[in-house]
C-alpha cells in the first residue's frame, strides 16, 4: 500500500528560505541546503522548493538550491513559483527537479499544462491551486493569492488533470500560515473528484490537523513549512503519530 507522504516546503527568496503568514509578512527560516539535508535525514518523503520572490534573482537562487540539493539528496524534488513557460520548466528539471509546480501561468495559459506534460510527462507537472473561499465555494486565485481567476477550484482541478497535470498541490489561501488546521471541506471535495494525488497545504498547526487532512480530507500527501522550520514538530514525530493512528507512512 502507498504511504502517505510528508513533504517539507521551503519558500525560497534571494539566498534563503522564508515563510509567511497568509502569503505576507515573510520571515527568514534558515539555510535551504542545510534545512533540506536535515529533513532528508529525518525521513522527508519529498521536498518542495517555491520561489516566492518571482524575480530573476530569486529564480537564480532557486535553481542554485535545486542543483545543490539534488547532488546530495536522493528523494523527489519539486520546484515552482513564477514558472511561466516550457523553458522555465526545462531549466528547473535540468537543475535536478523531478517535478515543477505551476500556478498562475496555468490559469493564464492552460495549454502550458498540456505542452509540459507532452514534453516531460504528467509525472513532472504539478498543478498548484491557490484556493480561496468565495460566496458558496472556492475559487482558484492567481498572483500569490491576490487575483481571483473566477474559476471554481474543483472545476479547475479537473480541467488541469485533463490537460495533463499529474498531481494537485492544493493550497488554502484562507488557512496559509494560520495554524488553524487545513480546510478539510475543500480538500475532501477536490480529493473525491480527481484521479491524481492531492497534496494538502496551508493551515497545519497540530499533529491532529495533519491526521485530519489524511483521514477526513483524503489527502495523499501533506506539505508543511513553518511547523517544521521553526521546530514545533519534527518529521519523525509526525510519522510516529500517524502510524499510531493507523496511517501508512514510510
Amino acid at each position, binding site marked *: *500500500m502507498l504511504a502517505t507522504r510528508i513533504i517539507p516546503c521551503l519558500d525560497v527568496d534571494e539566498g534563503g528560505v522564508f515563510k509567511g503568514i497568509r502569503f505576507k509578512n515573510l520571515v527568514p527560516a534558515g539555510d535551504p541546503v542545510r534545512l533540506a539535508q536535515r529533513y532528508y535525514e529525518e525521513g522527508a518523503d519529498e521536498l518542495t522548493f517555491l520561489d516566492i520572490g518571482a524575480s530573476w534573482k530569486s529564480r537564480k537562487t532557486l535553481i542554485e538550491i535545486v542543483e545543490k540539493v539534488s547532488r546530495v539528496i*536522493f*528523494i*523527489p524534488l519539486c520546484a515552482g513559483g513564477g514558472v511561466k513557460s516550457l523553458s522555465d520548466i526545462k531549466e528547473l528539471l535540468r537543475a535536478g527537479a523531478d517535478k515543477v509546480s505551476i500556478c498562475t501561468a496555468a490559469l493564464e495559459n492552460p495549454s502550458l499544462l498540456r505542452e509540459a506534460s507532452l514534453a516531460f*510527462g504528467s509525472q513532472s507537472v504539478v498543478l498548484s491551486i491557490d484556493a480561496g473561499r468565495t460566496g458558496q465555494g472556492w475559487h482558484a486565485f492567481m498572483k500569490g493569492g491576490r487575483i481571483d481567476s473566477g474559476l471554481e477550484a474543483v472545476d479547475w482541478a479537473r480541467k488541469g488533470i485533463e490537460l495533463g497535470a499529474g*498531481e494537485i498541490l492544493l493550497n488554502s489561501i484562507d488557512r496559509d500560515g494560520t495554524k488553524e488546521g487545513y480546510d478539510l471541506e475543500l480538500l475532501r471535495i477536490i480529493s473525491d473528484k480527481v484521479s*491524481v494525488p492531492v497534496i494538502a497545504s496551508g493551515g497545519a498547526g497540530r499533529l491532529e490537523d495533519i491526521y485530519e487532512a489524511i483521514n477526513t480530507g483524503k489527502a495523499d500527501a501533506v506539505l508543511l513549512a513553518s511547523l517544521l522550520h521553526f521546530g514545533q514538530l519534527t518529521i519523525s514525530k509526525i510519522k510516529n503519530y500517524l502510524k499510531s493512528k493507523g496511517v501508512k507512512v514510510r
Partner: protein
Amino acid sequence: MIGLIDYGAGNLNSVRRAFETLGFKNRLITSEEQMDNSLDKLVVPGVGAFGYAVRELKRRGLWPAIKNWLKENRPFLGICLGLQLLFEGSEESPEEPGLGFFIGKCLKLPSVKVPHTGWNEIELSQSDSLFEGIKNREYFYFVHSYAVLDKSDNDKVLALTSYGGNFISAIKQGNIYGVQFHPEKSGPAGLKLLLNWSAKC
C-alpha cells in the same frame, strides 16, 4: 564504467548524481558508437512514454545494440520504463513491441489513482545480491501508470508490489535486472540498491 542510455526523454541527472555520489564512473550514451568496450555495465533509466522511447532508441541506433547487450548477458539495469522495455510490449503503445527479453506485457494499473505516485513497499520473492542489506517490505519511490501484473509462476521475479493488485517491482535473469521503482529517488535504501548493483550484480 557504467553507461547510461539517454534517449532524450527524462531527466538523467538524478541517476548520474546517484552513481557519482556512490563513486561509480558513468557516462551518457546517445548513439550506438558510444557503446564501446569501455562499458562494463548498462543502465536504461526511464521516464516517458513506451512508444516514444522505442522509437528514439531505434532512431539513435541503440535498439539493436541493447538487444545484443542482453543476448550476451552483460550487466544491465532497467529502471521504471527501462524495466518495462525488457518485456514484450505495453498497452500504452501497442504499435511498438518491446525488447522481448522477459515474457509478458505492461498493462495500465488497475487502480483509482493513476499514476501510482509515491513510496510503496516491495515484497521480496527470493533473495538476491541486489537487495543485500535491504529489509523485506522496504519502501521505494514509484511513479508510473503501467506495470507488469504479477505472473505467479514467474521464477524470475525478485519482488512484487501491491497497488490495486500485484505487479512486478523487480525482476532478474542472469545479469539482467529491472526495477519498476526509482532507486535514485528512494533515499538511503535506493542508494544501497544502486551500490549493490554496481558492486555485486
